[in-house]
């Protein structure tokens, strides 16, 4: 991934000609102070703690973080599909004027697939192996739009064509195991778009694919973005991928938001120490690395070793254990959002955030 990462990062950080800044699009989804927890309930594991971000119509929000950062769970929470026994312990998820976190499963079921859709990480596993792809997707149309079988299959075929599946008609009667990885992911993308959802959540949709196929799928997603004006939340751990596909980025670490903002801004001027470390540790094509007297290249900086994994002992900022700039207050106080530029906010005491005492 190094090549892709370096190249796109350079492109992302390069100054762009100032565009006519039209009034920003309306906010589609607003996640506010989301908390997700696991049992035991007398001392719950706080896997997502006070996470907030907004996604506007037509915009792609990239959520970046390493494994365990809570990025997948926060997006699953939007659909209210948390794997039991996890549950939403606080916060709101505003979508189309309603709080999704307060809805029942039955109410959510009406929205899922219709206004909200999801693309999963592993296409091989997220398709039902016992049904043909045509039948699976047609069923969704039957549920949401009550289409009869033939009309449903026709629509599925149209979408197959849209996502670039060759010979879409004959694919309808194929089983998932008869398709390649890239083809299956295209089917999953088609499945997400069936009912023209307002928001698509993509959970690392390219991670399980070969590099060349990854590039194809990203191309496809970008194209669909342009053509359909899709709003998307794209979760990934890969800086290179997010640099390419996202408009805005939210960086997460261990269940907390580090910073959120415009993609160019974050790549050009990373603020939070974690973001800085992440970007510094990726090899870049537009930087030259010094060679010392013995012919050895300078080493890439790395993010420091985690002293205490996951939760911070004092309940404060969870990156404090690995942060080169940490001070004692950092482990005690939870940094709140601080606006550093228009449209950008960062959560760091050393960058101007106010601190609130946290719980362990």
């Amino acid at each position: 991934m190094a090549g892709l990462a370096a190249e796109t990062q350079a492109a992302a950080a390069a100054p762009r000609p100032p565009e006519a800044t039209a009034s920003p699009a309306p906010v589609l989804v607003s996640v506010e102070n989301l908390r997700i927890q696991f049992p035991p309930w007398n001392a719950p594991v706080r896997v997502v703690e006070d996470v907030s971000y907004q996604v506007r119509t037509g915009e792609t929000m990239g959520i970046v973080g390493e494994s365990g950062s809570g990025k997948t769970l926060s997006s699953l929470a939007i659909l209210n599909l948390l794997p039991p026994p996890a549950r939403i312990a606080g916060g709101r998820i505003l979508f189309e004027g309603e709080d999704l976190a307060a809805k029942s499963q039955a109410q959510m079921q009406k929205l899922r697939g219709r206004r909200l859709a999801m693309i999963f990480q592993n296409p091989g596993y997220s398709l039902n192996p016992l049904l043909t792809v045509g039948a699976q997707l047609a069923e969704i149309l039957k549920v949401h739009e009550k289409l009869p079988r033939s009309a449903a299959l026709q629509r599925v075929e149209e979408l197959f064509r849209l996502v670039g599946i060759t010979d879409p008609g004959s694919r309808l009667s194929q089983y998932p195991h008869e398709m390649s990885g890239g083809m299956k992911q295209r089917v999953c993308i088609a499945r997400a778009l069936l009912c023209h959802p307002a928001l698509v959540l993509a959970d690392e949709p390219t991670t399980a694919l070969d590099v060349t196929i990854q590039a194809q799928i990203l191309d496809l997603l970008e194209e669909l973005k342009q053509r359909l004006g899709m709003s998307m939340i794209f979760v990934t751990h890969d800086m290179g991928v997010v640099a390419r596909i996202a408009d805005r980025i939210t960086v997460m670490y261990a269940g907390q938001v580090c910073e959120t903002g415009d993609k160019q801004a974050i790549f050009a001027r990373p603020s939070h120490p974690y973001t800085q470390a992440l970007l510094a540790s990726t090899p870049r094509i537009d930087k030259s690395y010094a060679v010392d007297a013995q012919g050895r290249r300078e080493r890439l900086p790395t993010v420091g070793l985690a002293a205490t994994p996951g939760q911070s002992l004092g309940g404060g900022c969870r990156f404090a254990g690995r942060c080169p700039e940490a001070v004692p207050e950092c482990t005690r106080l939870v940094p709140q959002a601080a606006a550093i530029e228009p449209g950008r906010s960062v959560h760091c005491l050393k960058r101007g955030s106010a601190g609130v005492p946290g719980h362990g």
Partner: protein
Amino acid sequence: MRVFVFLARRLIFAIILMLGVSAAIFFLINAIGNPIELMMAETPGMTGEVIERMKGYYGLDQPPLTRYLLWLGRLLHLDFGTSIVYNQPVGSLIATWGWQTLKIQLPAILIALAIAILFGVTAARRQHSRSDFTVMGTALLGQSLPAFFLGILLIFVFSYTLDWLPSYGAYSTRNPLWGSPTLDALWHMILPVAMLTFFNTATLTLLMRSNMVDVLKSDFIAAMRASGIPERRVIYVHALRAAFIPMLTYLGLLIGLMLGTAPVTESVFTWPGLGSLYVAAIHQLDYPVIMGASAVIAFMLICTTLLTDVIYVLIDPRISLEGGP
């Protein structure tokens, strides 16, 4: 087309198996000693007529291989010979007694399957809850309880102590229940079917639960939920189908086990089924019945295995038709 090729292969294998088993039965029984001489040693009162008839049927003055082929040939014509003890054609004996066996085996399997699906799915949905552990615990216990001991217990409690249900036989010899022979027969069926069902249910429930738990964790179920498919359908149509498929092979084995231990089951309840016929025949050295009944039981078992394999392939699109999983 591929389906037919596959079916043909399995069929041929089944036939070879039948031949093998029938040969095994034949040579095993005849290798131990010449049946006529053995019988004469045990039952000195055997009449010359019976001996002559046996000689004729088995061609006892000929080499073993010829005798085997002779017997096999008659089998294929459904000519099982005549029972020495009952003096009736073995075929009709097997039919009558076999029907009694089916009377209790079939309902047992069906009821067990229904209960297993119900409880297995419910337990899987409420994984780690108290009801889950109860179901699992009962099932584990049921698996270890020897079926025939359960039968004895059932008789002891419901028949001797409470006197609610009959303790033996398929029919009352006098005074059928409430004057109706059908009701009477059903009344007699209750305990044996209960016993068979209990054992089957235990194993099937555990398996169903385990499969369901795995399926419910899978991505495609989450994806279906994410697409807005109603929870009812997700669980009872899609998840259930995925969880049920691996059970098929086990179902075949279970039927085989039930049939194989029918002698014991029927002995506990003194039930006039194929198993009882077989045991009595062995005790009394009624060779035609022994060989005929073994052949029929083996045949039923092989058919069951063949059927399960075929159904499995037809239902699961992932299995290639050539070699199987």
